[in-house]
């Protein structure tokens, strides 16, 4: 190693030492893909995560060496450490940090030649743009317009790009003019490490799914509790309701009339009568029985 290290310039050696220090200090790190991420977004990430993590932009080879130095096999990271990478070092829950990073979004304008990952809609209404050369740009994009009070109005919501489309120079300029910064910039996490490698797609938790699971679990517990008639404040009203419903159903089925069951008993009788009437009227339409 020393022979290799000597071939590096001093600043590289310093960087390596720094990374090794961080890897020793923190047991968790997350690797993000910097490709196409503007400096302003990186700036925001650094600022917002200042209390959570130490952030470094790393060179793949150097980081691999640092990993090896602290006893982490860099082989597993081989495919991840290509291109421009940013690494967050932390002792916090990697999923928690990942969510924080994921929730930091910068809105930007689409530039000509970029691909969009979503549908772009020019909304109906006043553009604030006076008629002139811009009119033909609208025309080129097949956006219906009308001029009112010397201002261009878009006639109706118009889809101008679908996911995967390349942004044309005209569209880019219109989006700019309309103040539509629609491109969501967020850092894509390639992976996390917390004793083991956690793939990037597993890092971003689907909170909605957990919400549904919590709901389902609580419902499970409630079902069992109701079935057991557990006398707890949150369960008892349900158990009482269940008992009342059962008692009422039984009373209705038995034709047991009390002031509180009489309506239900009548309805049940009528429902049954209607069912029979339906069958009878099919076999003997000449009876002219009126079925609901």
């Amino acid at each position, binding site marked *: 190693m020393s022979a290799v290290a000597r071939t590096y310039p001093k600043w590289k050696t310093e960087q390596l030492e720094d990374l090794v220090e961080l890897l020793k200090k923190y047991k968790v790190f997350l690797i993000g893909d910097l490709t196409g991420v503007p400096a302003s977004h990186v700036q925001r990430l650094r600022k917002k995560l200042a209390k959570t993590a130490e952030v470094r932009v790393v060179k793949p080879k150097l980081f691999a060496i640092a990993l090896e130095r602290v006893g982490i096999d860099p082989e597993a990271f081989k495919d991840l450490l290509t291109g421009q990478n940013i690494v967050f070092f932390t002792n916090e829950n990697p999923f928690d940090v990942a969510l924080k990073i994921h929730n930091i979004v910068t809105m930007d304008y689409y530039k000509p030649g970029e691909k969009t990952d979503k549908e772009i809609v020019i909304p109906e209404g006043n553009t604030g743009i006076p008629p002139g050369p811009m009119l033909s740009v609208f025309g080129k994009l097949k956006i219906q317009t009308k001029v009112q009070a010397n201002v261009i109005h878009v006639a109706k919501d118009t889809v101008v790009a679908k996911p995967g489309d390349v942004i044309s120079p005209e569209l880019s300029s219109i989006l700019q003019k309309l103040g539509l910064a629609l491109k969501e910039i967020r850092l894509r996490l390639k992976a996390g490490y917390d004793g083991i490698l956690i793939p990037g797609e597993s890092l971003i938790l689907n909170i909605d799914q957990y919400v549904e699971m919590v709901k389902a679990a609580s419902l499970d517990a409630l079902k069992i509790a109701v079935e057991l008639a557990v006398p707890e404040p949150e369960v008892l009203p349900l158990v009482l309701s269940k008992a009342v419903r059962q008692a009422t159903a039984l009373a209705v089925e038995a034709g047991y009339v*009390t*002031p509180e069951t*009489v309506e239900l008993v009548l*309805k*049940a009788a*009528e429902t049954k009568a*209607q*069912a029979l*009437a339906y*069958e009878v009227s099919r076999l003997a339409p000449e009876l002219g029985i009126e079925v609901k």
Partner: protein
Amino acid sequence: MEYIYASLLLYKAGKELSEENIKRVLEAAGVAVDDVRVKSLVAALKNIDIAKVLEQALAAPVAAAPVQA
């Protein structure tokens, strides 16, 4: 449910839902009539809007068909 059907029969025939009427219908059907039951039925029926209740009952074909999706 005999008492109820007797009452519904009278109701549809436009007759009064009196104890005597219900009793007569039940007896015509060969049912041994229990006076107390008739009395409490008549009392209970007095307090409800039968027309409305019947309207709210389920329509025949829906109820009759085993609901299968």
